[in-house]
């Protein structure tokens, strides 16, 4: 045990080499797309909507599919009101305010790792970011849970409370609902992999 702690101490104090620092920079850059590409996509298919009603969730906003002939977010809200679901509104998601801020913070921390060049900072970044990612996922799931459970008791159509799918496909009434991560999330998921690779490359570098 003592030996392990000593080893760990050495590991945490290990400086990280140039290759690792490059990887950290690349990892941080992976977060840039989260500002421009959606993190999650929900698509609802039915007979009336063979092309699917689309909602894209970005780090900072909620966007429905929009064609000259349809506003999908408005349409989904119109349909949901029959089961008494609250309208999906950007203002209801505090996430859109703090997520971009946190992502920016993470990128600054990555810069700090590059400058200070210690394994401990790198581990901090990795742990923080993983926690942030998992928390965001839980927060998203919780939002979906609330929307599906906080149903207006006076709604025209009364259905048992439910949680819309966070991942995968489910049939809801006349809709086939598909929910999957989108481009932004894939980049975001790549970030910790770069951090791990950076740790791996510098694991044996000595003072």
């Amino acid at each position, binding site marked *: 045990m003592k030996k392990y702690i000593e080893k760990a101490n050495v590991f945490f104090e290990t400086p990280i080499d140039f290759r690792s620092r490059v990887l950290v920079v690349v990892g941080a850059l992976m977060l840039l797309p989260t500002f421009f590409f959606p993190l999650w996509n929900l698509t609802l298919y039915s007979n009336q909507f063979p092309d699917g009603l689309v909602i894209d969730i970005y780090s900072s906003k909620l966007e429905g599919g929009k064609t*000259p*002939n*349809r*506003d999908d977010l*408005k*349409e989904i809200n*119109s349909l949901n*009101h*029959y089961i008494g679901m609250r309208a999906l509104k950007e203002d209801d998601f505090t996430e859109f305010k703090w997520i971009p801020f946190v992502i920016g913070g993470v990128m600054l921390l990555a810069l700090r790792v590059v400058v200070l060049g210690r394994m401990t900072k790198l581990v901090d970044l990795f742990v923080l970011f993983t926690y942030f990612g998992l928390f965001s996922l839980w927060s998203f799931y919780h939002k979906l849970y609330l929307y599906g459970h906080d149903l207006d008791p006076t709604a*025209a159509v009364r259905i048992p409370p439910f949680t819309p799918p966070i991942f995968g496909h489910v049939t809801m009434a006349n809709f086939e609902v598909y929910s999957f991560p989108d481009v932004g999330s894939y980049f975001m998921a790549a970030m910790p992999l770069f951090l791990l690779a950076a740790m791996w490359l510098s694991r044996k570098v000595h003072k």
Partner: protein
Amino acid sequence: MKAKLSILLALTIVAALLIGCGEEKKGRGARSDVQEAALKTYVAPGDMDKYYLFKSGGHSGQVYIYGVPSMRHISTIPVFTPYPATGYGFDKESKEMLGGFTWGDAHHPSISETNGDYDGRWLFISDNANNRMARIDLRDFKTKQILGPIPNVSGNHCSSFSTENTEYILAGSRFSIPLPKGTFEKIEDYATKYKGVVAGIAVDPKSGTMSLGWEILMPPFNYDLGDAGKGPSKDWGFWTCYNSERATGKLEVTSTQKDRDYVAAVNWPAAEKAIKDGKFKMIGGVKVIDPKDVQGIVYLIPAAKSPHGVDVSPDGKYIIASGKLQSITTVFNIEKMLTAIEKKNFTGNEDGIPVLNYDAVKDAEVNVGLGPLHTQFDDKGNAYTSLFVESAVAKWKLGTWEVLDKIPVSYNIGHLTASEGDTKHPTGEFLVALNKLSHGRHLSVGPSQPEASQLIDITGEKMSLLYDAFTEPEPHYAQMIKADKLKPIEVYPKDENKHPKAIWDVKDAKVVRNGKNVEVQMVAVRSSFEPSSFEVNKGDKVTIYLTNIEQTTDELHGFGLNEYNINVVVDPGETKTIEFTADKAGVYPFYCTNFCSALHQEMQGYMLVKGSGGVASRKSPREKNLAIK
């Protein structure tokens, strides 16, 4: 796989038809090769037609939209007549546009052109009854403007025909009258005191807004049909006229005494210039050119007796006039016409308008058949002329003047329209014969008979009949445009709605009273009206601003107010104004008339009208009858 299935399906239908009709082929009018026809016209469920066909609706006052080659009636655009199906003529905006008229006689539709080809922006259509011109925007398929009654124009039949770049839409008088309108002159003075008019309706190239361009005073003939030139003839507008006898009474006899009538040719840039130069007189409040005073604007070309249609060939070289009482159609040559004008090769004049030497202007007399009326064109240099008396279409070659083929139609064809067949670049695929009589071609529907529209394939050497479709009275001319030239919207974007009383949230719905005026700002959205009820006093002037806040295609809502004779339909993103006086006390339900959702039936409300006297103020005939009993 899909294609195979549809062919299989088509063949099954064909087989069924063959079994069903094989025995009865004799003596039943025009027939076709069933198998070939079925394959060429079958549009499988979910598939789209290749062309839009806009048919005038005649005295129904509307425009009908068909798909070609399926010949399915897709929709109706109300133009000159109220149409509760779309709420047209019930809201303030469309009521004002209709100007109090409850019908019109929609005659000749004309798609706007750029360089002589359809650009798919607007569809213009003339009203023969109340002398109006309408413009439909092909972005949303809605009537946007009705101009008229046009001063001095009486019986706007020789209309609407677009110049090469839709600078003008041609119009004119079928029925000469004393001018200005409102003047009384004895019928015996017809030949001298009655006047015809031909006119150019100016079109704003950006907005499409129509205004009066120029009018020309003409002898009291009956101006029947027209066409605008293209290419070498682009500066000219042409009108046929019958009754150059200047006769009255039984025109059937009195107007058919001379061997020739005329085609009037108007140089419209010259007319434009005359107006600019101040060479006009004011008649009926508008600028009218009198050809007696201004030379070089109008000429008359003698044409076969009682001509009906005049059509300019795609290259703009030939002007083809069909004398409905003869068996020939006459081809005039624009170059010869210009030379004759230059050399002053005239044989007389009518009220100061020079008459050109027939033999100097004519290129050919084509022996097409009996009762030629109208001509359309394909992409291979052929012309197609409708033969009313003969009930047939003749195909003939421009230049060689040889009649190549003839196909019988059922029955008594009036106009015909080929795919983009009056433009510089006809596509030469389809031709629709717009027949006046249809008896025996459809399940009997009693004495009121529909008209027949027959689809004809014109791709081959021989024409072949493909399909019979039927239309309510009464298509005159039609326009067939490639479907991909139109890009209609299906939702009015919220940002485009400039109605000052539009609201987009049910929370903003309200009722405001101002003296005896009550304003209701109402929202329609699945599946409710907000407010769902409102109170007024008997005698109040009620204005409802109804906004459909949906932004999804096909989510229309109606607003029918019981016993108040009101039905308005609002499209997604649209606001309409409903104005009426609450002249009957009591409680009146209103409800969504255009099926919208699972809870459509629940989409309803009440107008509560306080006041004494109950329903007594306006009894329907039925109520009166009940009262007598």
